[in-house]
């Protein structure tokens, strides 16, 4: 329990400064600050240091290369292009489905549609930026045919050695092959990372059948999967779960596994309220 009569730690003063405390604690800290010159002074120092850094950071930033207007125009053009591609496609779709024309016209339409569709899917946009063709569902759960999950022959004892199974990035050529098999070449691969389905920390292999492109930005993203991997490894190494079960559950459907082992429907890190913990930051 915190004691109202003790001074506020610097860490908590910063949380108060950044308005990151719970309303109750925030009020307690404010009461203390009203009465304690020392803590008020300490908070002032933190505030100055943080404010001066913010200013140094901004003052020393490079100026943007282009004007906002030209960048905005470029963005608008690309979005318009995506929309136009869509209307062209939709028009063809309407034409084909509502058609009372002779069969050969229909067949021709299909051919044209196929060509157009292929162009949309494959042709890079002139700017080199990904166009409408890059849009696909994030492969949150890997394709079971492409990425069934492959393990090395290791035991729980091997896996639980300190430092065993450090995650390493697959070589560029392998990453490229993974993106390719998922139909995500080039720019389409941006925002994704080639990840192990069964993490090496749980005996997963570097085989391409254990690799898939994982999104950074979806709700069920790579960071959430990391949480699951840590949990499973802790359970395996703590003797609460056998290694094979852990491997099978994560390979079968890691999102279901997350829900099962964390007893939740949503990724915890996304909806938890602020909880103070003493873990050092990763990286």
């Amino acid at each position: 329990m915190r004691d109202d009569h003790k001074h506020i730690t610097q860490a908590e003063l910063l949380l108060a400064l950044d308005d990151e405390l719970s309303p109750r604690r925030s009020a307690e800290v404010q009461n203390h600050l009203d009465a304690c010159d020392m803590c008020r002074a300490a908070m002032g120092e933190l505030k100055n240091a943080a404010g001066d850094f913010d200013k140094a950071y901004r003052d020393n930033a490079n100026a943007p290369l282009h004007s906002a207007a030209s960048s905005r125009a470029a963005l608008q053009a690309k979005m318009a292009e995506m929309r136009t591609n869509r209307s062209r496609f939709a028009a063809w779709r309407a034409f084909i489905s509502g058609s009372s024309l002779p069969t050969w016209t229909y067949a021709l339409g299909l051919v044209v549609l196929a060509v157009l569709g292929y162009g949309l899917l494959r042709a890079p946009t002139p700017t080199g930026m990904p166009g409408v063709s890059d849009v696909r569902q994030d492969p949150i759960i890997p394709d079971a045919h492409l990425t069934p999950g492959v393990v090395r022959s290791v035991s729980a004892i091997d896996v639980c050695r300190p430092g065993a199974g450090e995650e390493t990035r697959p070589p560029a050529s392998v990453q490229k092959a993974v993106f390719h098999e998922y139909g995500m070449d080039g720019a389409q691969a941006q925002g994704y990372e080639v990840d192990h389905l069964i993490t090496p920390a749980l005996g997963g292999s570097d085989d391409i059948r254990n690799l898939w492109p994982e999104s950074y930005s979806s709700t069920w993203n790579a960071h959430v999967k990391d949480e699951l991997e840590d949990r499973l490894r802790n359970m395996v190494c703590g003797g609460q779960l056998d290694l094979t079960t852990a491997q099978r559950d994560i390979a079968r459907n890691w999102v279901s596994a997350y829900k099962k082992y964390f007893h939740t429907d949503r990724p915890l890190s996304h909806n938890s309220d602020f909880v103070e913990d003493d873990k050092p930051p990763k990286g």
Partner: protein
Amino acid sequence: MASQSANPGTEAAFLGAIDAALPLGPEAIEEEVVLLFDEYRVRLLRYVLSLGICAQDGEDVIQEVFLSLFRHLCLGRSRENLRGWIFCVAHNLALKQRNKNKRQQQRAVYEELALEKQLDPAADPEEQLAINERQMRLLQVVNALTEADRWCLYLRAEGLRYREIAHTLGLSLGSVANSLGRSIQKLARADER
């Protein structure tokens, strides 16, 4: 969330999703994206350049971020913590670009303080010099931090809440708070000589 767990999508799925993106049509989403672009462009650009990519790459990254946002919204994906989402995508794209450029040895923008930077004409010269010395000391402290600690500071300086920083960097809230606590205490001690 249900829409995300479905089978791999296709062109048609996206187009269908665009049609189904009610109540907002793609035109409305486009307008919204432009508004967000205007609001965040400078901050995002500053942040991605602070990760050590060049200005041209930074501009490309920003374009890509907002196109991704356009797709994200057209697909009816979550609007929760959108600012965290935007910074997260920008962060990851910038790091990817930086890895690509590694050979070219891009130099980090904040590793040096440009003394010839335009000075504030209102302040008197002695005061300006003092500001620069102090900034120099602060930036030296920052350069001695780990990269993740620096990122937290930059994102805080861009006005992000801790949960948004956590989302961007894939850290827990506690880790973000600890990192910032440590770093800002170090900054506060930068003047103790």
